[in-house]
């Protein structure tokens, strides 16, 4: 499907319009994140700051998992955030052809909006021969407003839920992670990193207190995946 070359303004609004259905599904887990944030003792201001400045759902779920006010494991949370968001390095890199077409300050502002859904949608437009920085920013601005408001809504509404564990809401983390993981399935090459990551995490968790198993399992599992890829390239190809 070809779209005519259009002005930045119409590209922006095209991004906004196409993003609406995605925004609705993001809002639903934004609300859940907000409820869980309240349960973990995050204030409304902290929710606003984290959603507004970090603006990366999966890493915010991971951070919340380790959120213990009074003794926050700052280094572990920041390190886990970096590891979970490392995938954005490749996303921004693939958008380089678009970003090279605008001024440096605009490009530096636009990359703030790079995240799974906005990236996927902009790449899909690029493949159709369209896509632009204005389109990316259109999806990003709606996504940002949607994420900040839905997480705040969850935080405010969640204050009225007396005992989240009774309603199984603590499992929302695990359920979200399982669904996100399944969504990443690309084929058999994923089996080794996932299994090794899971086993390394179980071993780490049974020896060391705290959330270090996330970082350790992530590193060991991904290295195992890369080694398996290399082995396959050498012995099968």
């Amino acid at each position: 499907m070809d779209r005519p070359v259009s002005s930045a303004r119409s590209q922006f609004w095209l991004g906004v319009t196409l993003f609406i259905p995605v925004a609705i599904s993001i809002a639903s887990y934004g609300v859940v994140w907000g409820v869980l944030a309240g349960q973990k003792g995050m204030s409304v201001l902290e929710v606003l700051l984290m959603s507004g400045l970090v603006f990366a759902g999966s890493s915010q779920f991971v951070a919340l998992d380790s959120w213990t006010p009074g003794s926050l494991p700052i280094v572990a949370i920041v390190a886990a955030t970096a590891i979970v968001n490392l995938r954005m390095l490749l996303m921004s890199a693939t958008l380089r052809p678009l970003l090279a077409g605008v001024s440096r300050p605009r490009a530096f502002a636009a990359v703030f909006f790079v995240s799974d859904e906005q990236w996927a949608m902009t790449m899909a437009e690029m493949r159709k021969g369209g896509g632009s920085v204005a389109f990316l920013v259109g999806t990003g601005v709606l996504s940002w407003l949607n994420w900040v408001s839905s997480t705040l809504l969850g935080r405010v509404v969640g204050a009225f839920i007396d005992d989240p564990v009774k309603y199984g809401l603590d499992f929302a983390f695990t359920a979200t992670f399982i669904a996100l993981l399944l969504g990443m399935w690309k084929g058999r090459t994923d089996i080794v990193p996932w299994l090794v990551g899971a086993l390394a995490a179980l071993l780490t968790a049974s020896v060391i207190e705290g959330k270090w198993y996330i970082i350790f399992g992530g590193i060991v599992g991904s290295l195992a995946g890369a080694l398996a890829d290399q082995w396959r390239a050498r012995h099968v190809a």
Partner: protein
Amino acid sequence: MSLEALLTILGMAAVTYGIRAAGMLLADRLPTQGFVASWMKHVPGAVLAALVAPAVLAVAPGRSLAEAFLPAETVAAVAVTLIYVGTRNLFAAMAGGVLVVFAMRMWLGA
């Protein structure tokens, strides 16, 4: 807001923005194949698998494997998997998992 919360949030924001900007700046120098590219490609999946496993089996230092087994969470994890594979809908999968845990805790005390 406490200083530790502010520092954590600013730290998370800085590394996340740093990664987003670095991708653009390093675009020409990032490997697209070979060991490092393959390693980076596997990071998100391995991290999520590492997150999930100890939540489905509640292992902890000094706890035996029999004590670590959580019936509600394990059954719910299977439910989440089936719902997600069937619907490809993140919210439906999450809501289904929470409902299973809620029902099992309420009726079975699991």
